């Protein structure tokens, strides 16, 4: 009887160990769904691995969850796009130092029919005010992501009291960029999206880009090492190597080289 138990335990150890321990040098990076779904990592990580021999395991979540993962010490590096939240993490001592890496921009996507008449505009605040006035359907991520945080800032800056003015027209999906786009597509609603996810998105329906280019729509990405002082097991050397590579001329060039349909998605700005 005991022999059978030992056998089962051995099998358990084997089952867990074999798939997990198969890599040699690797780091875990908590990042956002927009960077993953835009295909940037698919382009960038193989090059990084060839340059350094380090494998990167990306856990793609909303910014809020990604930073929580970093805070818990379940990742070595955080690479997200919410500057305020990132700096807060460093201030709390969970991040070592925040390095700006690149920016992409948001675009306002909406139905060809354009009920709020915002197409071609260069002012996101004006566009949002028009949408609220027309009570045109608008899909929001509502998931504490960097995109969601930005969206809320824009409503505020446009002078719209969202809490008061929210109605049936404002749809809070509580989900990632892709699912929110799916919802917007099926509802013919306006939606704020990052350009990367939009370019890679295939289920567009009647939606197209209506407002872009407003400097306010630029979306800054930053990377930081999870603080080994708080979480001693963090792979500090390897993690920092990744960040250093991202902000190096080599890494920045690789980022700039990533294109979808000939269009560049991310604009490196590590040096300001």
């Amino acid at each position: 009887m005991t022999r059978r138990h030992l056998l089962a335990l051995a099998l358990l150890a084997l089952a867990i160990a074999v798939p997990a321990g198969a890599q040699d040098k690797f780091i875990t990076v908590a990042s956002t769904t927009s960077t993953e779904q835009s295909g940037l990592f698919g382009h960038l990580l193989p090059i990084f691995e060839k340059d350094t021999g380090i494998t990167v395991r990306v856990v793609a979540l909303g910014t809020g969850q990604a930073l929580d993962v970093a805070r818990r010490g379940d990742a070595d590096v955080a690479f997200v796009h919410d500057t305020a939240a990132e700096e807060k993490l460093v201030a709390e001592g969970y991040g070592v130092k925040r390095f700006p890496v690149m920016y992409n921009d948001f675009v306002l996507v909406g139905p060809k029919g354009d009920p709020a008449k915002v197409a071609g505009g260069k002012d996101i605040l004006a566009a949002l005010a028009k949408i609220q006035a027309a009570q045109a359907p608008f899909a929001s991520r509502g998931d504490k992501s960097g995109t969601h945080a930005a969206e809320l800032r824009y409503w505020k800056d446009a002078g719209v009291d969202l809490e008061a003015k929210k109605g049936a027209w404002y749809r809070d999906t509580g989900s990632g960029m892709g699912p929110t786009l799916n919802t917007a597509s099926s509802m013919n609603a306006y939606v704020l999206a990052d350009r990367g996810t939009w370019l890679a998105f295939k289920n567009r329906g009647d939606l197209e880009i209506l407002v872009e280019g407003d400097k306010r729509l630029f979306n800054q990405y930053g990377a930081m090492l999870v603080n080994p002082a708080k979480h001693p097991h963090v792979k500090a050397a390897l993690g920092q190597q990744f960040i250093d590579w991202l902000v190096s001329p080599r890494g920045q060039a690789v980022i700039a080289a990533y294109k979808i349909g000939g269009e560049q998605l991310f604009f490196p700005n590590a040096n300001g």
Partner: protein
Amino acid sequence: MNTVSESLALAVGLVTHADPNLVDIVMLSLQVSLTATFFAAYIGLPLGAAIAVGRFPGRDALIVVLNAMMGLPPVVVGLVVYLLLSRSGPLGSYGLLFTPGAMVIAQTILIAPIIAALTRQIVADAWLEYSEQLTSLGASTYRAATTLLWDTRFSLATVLLAGFGRAIAEVGAVMIVGGNINGVTRVMTTTIALETSKGDLPLALALGLVLIAIVVLVNAIAQMTRGWAKARFG
């Protein structure tokens, strides 16, 4: 219905070309869920038999709890296991989070109650038929439980298939504890979720059809084995 026919064509293409990425994902799904079924059976079969045959205070309450746990939401199981395995959690030092091991653990917890509850029902029904004869022959409670487990093996095989089906079909638990990491913890269901969220619905549906086909295949193999065993051993 264009999406469906497009997906069917895609699905056939995926299978015939045996895209190595897809093969890896399928193999990982099978590895994780089959391992989880094995461990859940290791826990659930004896547990179910013991509750069926044993008599002890609180037994009725335990049966109610066990049956209720068949309805554990996978995403809740995933969340709890995540909190346990997180570096900030009690079992963090094992470094199991975001590995297939964590996925096996989560799925085992998810399906062990199903296997235990259904085993309990099957063995209890058999016990009604056998208890007098087995007691007359001098079988201890332990011996009776193991005898009944073997005797009801054909029904129990279906229970294991139910457990496996639940495991390989779920996405909530493995998404949270595995992190859907490309090449490491990405399984069929998390891939389908990912492709759906990217808006690539035909591909997502195609993968779904492949998943269903694999589950049907597993069941067909099990049924054939059953038939052969029944003919041979009765």
